[in-house]
């Protein structure tokens, strides 16, 4: 036992969507000899109880994952100009305009 058994199983990754309006989530992986068996085993292994709207099976060897080196280098850079929190001063600046308008008496309602 042997090569044939060693080559028999392939690794598959299982993804599912609980409800139509939810994103696809990674569930787990499994070993199966082919796509159809992988689908059957995915149902048996992961969905004996919980509701599932959709199920995807992907052969792991078809996935390009990040290496640890890539993950380490992929740290978040500060990009406040891309996010709303980079614009936290707006309210204060509006208040200044409102205060000035109040003094001169021509503010709207």
């Amino acid at each position: 036992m042997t090569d044939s058994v060693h080559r028999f199983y392939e690794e598959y990754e299982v993804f599912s969507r609980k409800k139509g309006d939810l994103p696809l989530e990674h569930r787990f992986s499994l070993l199966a000899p082919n796509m159809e068996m992988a689908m059957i085993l995915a149902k048996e292994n992961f969905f004996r109880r919980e509701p599932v709207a959709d199920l995807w099976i992907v052969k792991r060897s078809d996935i390009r994952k990040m290496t640890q080196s890539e993950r380490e280098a992929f740290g978040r850079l500060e990009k406040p100009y891309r996010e709303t929190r980079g614009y936290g001063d707006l309210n204060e600046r509006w208040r200044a305009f409102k205060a000035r308008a109040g003094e001169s008496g021509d503010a709207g309602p």
Partner: protein
Amino acid sequence: MAAAVPFEQWTAEEKYGHFMRRIENGEKIEADDWMPDDYRKALIRLITMHGISEIMGAFPEKEWVPKAPTLRRKLAIMAKVQDEMGHGQLLLRVAEDLVKPCGKTREDILQDLFAKRLKFHNVFHMPSPTWADAAVIAWLVDGAAILSQTMMLKTSYGPYGRALKRICQEESFHAKHGESLTLSLAEGTPAQRRMLQEAIDRWWEPLLMFFGPKTKEATGHTNVDKNLKYKLRTKTNEELRQEFLSKYVPKIRLLGLAIPDPTLRYDDEKGEWIYREPDWNKFKQIVTGNGPKTDERLRLRRTSYENGRWVREALAQWKAAAV
């Protein structure tokens, strides 16, 4: 900022330091991350043992599937047996990714089991002669397993933690199922209550053993220490056993059942349970593959593996033809 040195070019010490900082920060380690050898070894030992225990754990209960007293009970115990096998599948998957860099596969894990090179929990080497054993297994053995699995939910190894999350959800159904079986027998006739008492008497010592010896002097190794250092677990064997006693002793007594240990009491001053130590030599005998049911169940496991061979071969042919 100076140009960062790519991770592959770090020295072993730098990688180890980085790894330990990640552990201390509560980060999760993934299968293809760099990890020290003894971390990988500790994971393989822990997770193969857990996975194989799930599979061997289905055996004492599966004996009761054809003999369950009602259809509903039959469906429930079948569901539980199927869940346990499913947990075995999840955990073996986690273990397989860890042994892969050593050139090993599921086949090697199973062969290790058949050759008794791989241990599984003491409780699954024991006989389950009555329906009350099925009740006590589901209530108390699963209850004990839930305590140790919940403790490991925050384990530093990401894939194991994710598997445990799913497993713990299903185990909580198992414990309810066991509670329901136990209550039915406790509410029943004198003969049913006697059967339940006898099952408690049989299972008490194996349940205390389940958590493992108290000290490393008794175990002769330091796996627990290593597992704590790497944040694979957060509590010692004895802490878990104390939790178990606090949770279940009052319940067992409330049912009017006796615990077969006259020395058992809660010491208020020490804040802990005092109990009679199980026979740890017997424990060693059992987990090294010499329990009352070890050989019979391993034979059954091997036979069903052999009997399934033609299916695997047929599928392999079909696959070869399809390519």
